């Protein structure tokens, strides 16, 4: 808002003052929201760090176990057991609300299976294959949890950024511009008031001078009439 666009009227001044008040209230609310989001984000971040660490551990363990199964039972046997899968895991996406931010909630089914639900026979597979399958199921479960948490984190970050932009826009642009406009109008109104007072003074002086002149002229006329008499 530039000063030239502002009409220096009392009505506009009142409007601008109202907008400033509203903006300051909004700024305060958004600041609180931003701080709240950051606090929530920090909690999620901590959880995400734990999940990521656990995902790395699970991956290392799963790799170790599949390597052992591949080494001891051979690739062909591991592939055979893998191809016998009975049920493919499925995921269902739901959502939850954290401080107005809609984040996904992932419900996974049939990720962790009992050895009897994996579809391969116990007669031609070993405990090594059970362990490898179990580790990968655990890893998949952690990956799903990590996906949920990291997506929530991403959405929270986007919301924090958006809120920060709004807070900054209010704090550094809108409120200062409104204040500038308010100051401008106040200045202009004061100036106009001063001009008005000056003008009134001038008129008053002129009228006084005119009255003095009139009185002097009458006095002269009276003096002249008296002289004639």
């Amino acid at each position, binding site marked *: 808002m530039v000063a030239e666009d502002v009409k220096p009227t009392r009505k506009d001044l009142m409007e601008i003052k109202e907008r400033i008040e509203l903006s300051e209230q909004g700024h305060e609310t958004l600041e609180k929201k931003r701080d709240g989001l950051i606090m929530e984000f920090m909690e999620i971040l901590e959880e995400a760090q734990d999940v990521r660490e656990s995902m790395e551990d699970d991956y290392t363990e799963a790799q170790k176990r599949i390597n052992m199964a591949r080494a001891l039972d051979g690739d062909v046997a591991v592939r055979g057991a893998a191809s016998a899968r009975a049920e493919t895991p499925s995921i269902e996406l739901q959502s939850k609300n954290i401080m107005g931010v809609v984040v996904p909630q992932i419900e996974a089914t049939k990720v962790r299976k009992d050895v009897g639900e994996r579809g391969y*026979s116990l007669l031609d597979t070993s405990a090594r294959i*059970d362990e490898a399958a179990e580790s990968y199921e655990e890893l998949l479960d952690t990956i799903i949890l990590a996906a949920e948490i990291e997506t929530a984190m991403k959405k929270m970050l986007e919301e924090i950024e958006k809120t920060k932009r709004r807070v900054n826009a209010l704090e550094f642009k809108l409120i200062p511009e409104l204040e500038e406009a308010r100051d401008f109008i106040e200045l202009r109104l004061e100036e106009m008031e001063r001009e008005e007072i000056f003008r009134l003074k001038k008129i008053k002086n002129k009228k006084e001078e005119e009255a003095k002149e009139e009185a002097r002229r009458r006095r002269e006329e009276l003096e002249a009439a008296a002289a004639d008499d």
Partner: protein
Amino acid sequence: MTYTASSKYGVEDTESPNFEYVSARVRARKAQLFDEDDYRKLVRMSPNEIARYMEENGYDREINRLGARHSGVDLIEYALYDNMSETFHDIVGWSKGSLRKLVVSYLRKYDAWNVKTVIRGVYTDATEDEIRTDLIPAGELSEDDLDAAINSESVEQAVEALADTAFGDALEEALRDYKDEGVLLPLENAVDRVFYRRLLADAGEGSGPEKVYREYLQAEVDLLNVRNALRAAESEAVDLDDYFVEGGARFRREELQRLVGNREELVEALRASKYGGDITDAIDALEEGSSLVELDRALEELLIDFAQKMTYRYPNSVAPVISYILNKEREVDNVRGIARGKEVGMTVEEIEEEVMV
């Protein structure tokens, strides 16, 4: 139950068994297996060096034949299987009469393996080439016998194509369960059950070496059952009945069904059995919370030792052949284990401790 006309081995019962000749041949072959010294060298080599070492030590034909199709550890693994298949064919070729019947019966585990591989391949829409790559043609059925099944469009068609094999009737019967449940488990279990049933039936009822061989097979079945009972004990969905194989000497179906609900009692029963004394360390480890992997290894070693003792007792029987087959399989497991271990960056100590049998 009959075999297809194109089966590789015709069982000729009329000839007298040539135990002495085959024992001498397998003893010579056993001497050619990789020994401690070879393994010490192999664990310090990269997969490519292992392939080269194999090429220079009896695997030249397989490495050269498969070299164009595979590389790295896959080349090693497929060369090992090919060489093992060729070796087992040679043994069947040397054997006559009842010995041949016993060897063919024992090697039928590879037929069972191949039939399951084909059915799995068809079930998962694997390509013909992918299925053929995973076959281990060490049994009686040749690739030609499996051709029609490999080219099948559905599991039902594959079962139909396998009708003339030893597994045909059992597969046909299990097909109903497959259709009901949609999983391969009933078909796979049917194949394994047929293998063990025929193996025990073919072992005969005689005394002396036949009796010891029967005892060996019973031990194999016992250990398979107890191992699966231990796996079932950790599960809520496994019905041991689906996996129990008849024919063991020590563990009866009812006993294991009862013990499967109490893991501690099951472990104690294994310790108290005639096998317990040879696997004390593994049982102790299991009781202390170790996984079943260690026990699996101990059981494998126990069977190899059993076969070796059987050989010392009856040097001119099927025993040396079974012992050789187990040792050849161990060579395959060890070399593959070393190569896979090296591929994934395991240390020499880790491979020696955790991989090698």
